[in-house]
């Protein structure tokens, strides 16, 4: 019995260390990533902050509850001569351990609700992009600019991901996270997106933006993001949409505003010429 208990102790302390490690927000490493990204938008930062808040609440509550459990398991053993007490209930204890979690949840709700309101507020956007999900690609339309294009999995990834392709994915740049045509957006601009789907459900998810919204046939959902740092950000479809659900990535390239406008002008030019 004693050996079992000490095994249990070791195992549990291991689990607690792992939990603590999870909450320590280790710096990003390529592979053994543990935590949520802090992202590059205010929404992502809010998601991260709330995630860390609730994770810490859970960690503290978990350490407290597990410590009591482990103390009980270690201390009140029959093999150590423990004699069972006879108490069966305590209204005082029930009230205390009902009220404390309630207060913690009220605090958590108080912290969370305003963030939800801010995330939902699409007013004052400077431009609108319409996103349409297809099996298995994305279409991006710059609303009012008369320009749209499709974005599909890059050929290198597509070749490597075939069953028995013999290509080692580790040798493919951005395996499964590369597309032929990235969505290009201006940095520092509040962008409203409209999202729908043409066939089945999809979901457009870029972790660095904390944007995840379902693309639903017959619905036009909306949301917004504002990327402050120029850069390339990657994501994936997050709603099961059939056999190639895992193979319709999202790549967003945020350019400084002037560069974006120059890019859009060059893209629109051939289309205009063709129309004429």
């Amino acid at each position, binding site marked *: 019995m004693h050996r079992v*208990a000490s*095994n*249990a102790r070791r195992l549990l302390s291991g*689990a607690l260390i792992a939990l603590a490690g999870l909450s320590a927000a280790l710096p990003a490493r390529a*592979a*053994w*990533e*543990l*935590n*949520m990204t802090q992202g590059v938008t205010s*929404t992502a930062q809010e*998601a991260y902050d709330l*995630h860390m808040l*609730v994770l810490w609440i*859970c960690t503290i509550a*978990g350490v407290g*509850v597990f410590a*009591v*459990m482990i103390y*009980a*398991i270690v201390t*009140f053993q*029959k093999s150590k001569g423990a004699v069972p*007490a*006879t*108490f*069966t*209930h*305590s209204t005082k204890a029930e009230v205390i*351990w009902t009220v404390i*979690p309630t207060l913690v*949840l009220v605090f958590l709700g108080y912290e*969370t609700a305003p*963030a*939800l*309101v801010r*995330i939902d507020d699409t007013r004052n956007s400077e431009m609108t992009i319409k996103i349409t999900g297809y099996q298995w690609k994305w279409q991006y339309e710059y609303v009012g600019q008369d320009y749209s294009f499709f974005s599909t999995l890059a050929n290198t990834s597509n070749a490597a991901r075939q*069953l*028995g392709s013999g*290509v*080692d*994915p*580790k040798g*493919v740049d951005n395996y*499964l996270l590369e597309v032929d045509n990235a969505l290009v957006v201006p940095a520092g601009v509040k962008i409203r997106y409209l999202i729908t789907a043409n066939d089945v*459900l999809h979901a457009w998810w870029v*972790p660095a933006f*904390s944007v*995840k919204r*379902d693309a*639903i*046939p017959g*619905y036009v959902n*909306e949301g917004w993001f504002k990327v402050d740092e120029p850069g390339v950000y990657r994501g*994936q479809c*997050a709603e*099961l949409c*059939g056999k190639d*659900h*895992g193979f319709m990535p999202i790549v967003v390239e945020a350019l400084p505003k002037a560069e974006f406008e120059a890019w859009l002008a060059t893209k629109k030019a051939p289309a205009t010429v063709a129309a004429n």
Partner: protein
Amino acid sequence: MSTTNHDHSHAGHDHGDHAHAGHDDHHGPARGLTRWIFTTNHKDIGTLYLLFALVMLFVGGAMAMVIRLELFQPGLQFVNPDFFNQMTTMHALIMIFGMIMPAFVGFANWMIPLMIGAPDMALPRLNNWSFWILPFASSILVSTLFMDGGGPAGGWTLYPPLSLQAGNSFPFTIFAVHLLGMSSILGSINIIVTIMNMRAPGMTLLKMPLFVWTWLITAYLLIAAMPVLAGGVTMLLTDQFFGTTFFQAAGGGDPVLFQHIFWFFGHPEVYIIILPAFGIVSQIIPTFSRKPLFGYAAMVYATASIGFLSFIVWAHHMFTVGMPLAGEMFFMLSTMLIAIPTAVKVFNWTATMWRGSLTFETPMLFSLAFLFLFTIGGFSGLMLAIAPADFQYHDTYFVVAHFHYVLVPGALFAAIAGAYFWLPKWTGHMYDERLGKIHFWLSAISVNVTFFPQHFLGLAGMPRRIPDYATQFADWNMVSSIGSFGFGLSQLLFAYIVIKTIRGGRAATAQVWDQPEGLEWTVPSPAPYHTFDEAPVVK
């Protein structure tokens, strides 16, 4: 369990207890296969349910092994994406409807009459039928894998329009779901009628063992939730074959409506699975703490609160569908409320152990693992309730980790704990304690190696239901796969232990454990074919 055939005549007389006054009117079970086909005996039917669940554990488990094998490293090595999707869909359907629910109904059949001092279930023929629907329904479900176009591949949630892209197997899937639901409803009716009408004199509602209470509430949840699922899948069927457009936007329908219908069933379903697990653990922890369950009344009220809340939180599965702000706010806050009764339960179990006299037989070990690991699953559930953070967690491996923590070291560990706890009562033999402990440690370690890294994968951005992944997810996926292979193999040991115990072993006493509480321990082990012909009196 064929060894129980004639035991009751000996064992019953040896004890000479009240359970056997009507002995002359009854005979033992019929011989051979017909015993099992035509049986109306709650113990036989309980055994059938439990053995069926054990078989389905390996069917669903084999599918999980295919999934983890493909995810062992990036790239597609073994199966094509469509078959992978069939595996994730079928794994869930089989494990939920074919394994864990039948397992708990098996416990209900065996134990509720014994616990409330009833001679059998109230509706024995219905009981026979509700079991025998299951093998046929499950066979239909599994057979879809071999049909033209393969089995369902749109996820167990069957979201349209994707689920309507299924091949010829689609109506078979719907029919199987209908049958499985019907079986559950019939079983629930039987359980409610039994508990309400057949309690021994003096067994007032608030004297019932907690397992009976949790099942009473579960049965009501089932009756309320299952017809909603049946309606939803019927609408899918008519959309596919009869020209309706309930869920098709092109015809004025609404794909999101299905999600509301599904989760109005689906969230109570979560508690349908976990409440009986709470009940089993609430029987085991007091037994091995040698101390009554702390806060019995609070536990009953907490269970009822969870049952009620389960009907008003469903859309927290749908935070990303684009609900109005008020909807998101309501479902976020109501979901957070569930943490309160759940925390109360965990505190009461802990208080039950406090100043007890603990021993650590296998059922207790699994119950303790349940206590720790279900709590971890509860914490990640609270995290998922936070809508702004859920926009990051939703449909990632973080969700997969969360629900596997509540379903595997939660519900399944409770079922395994219950099996070890009552196997001596069912078979008359003690299981092999040393093997049981080995099974526990292998399971407890490998389940964490499997599912804990999935939290990391989800937080790092890996979507769920993908057959292949970007290379930054490779390391934790490999760890998770290795853990899952270990967990799968460990359950073979469980099957071996169960079979070994059925076939023989040290004879169990009537009490089996050290002064356990409850009527089931007043009858001999193995429990005679007919018990409580004359109702015991409960003081």
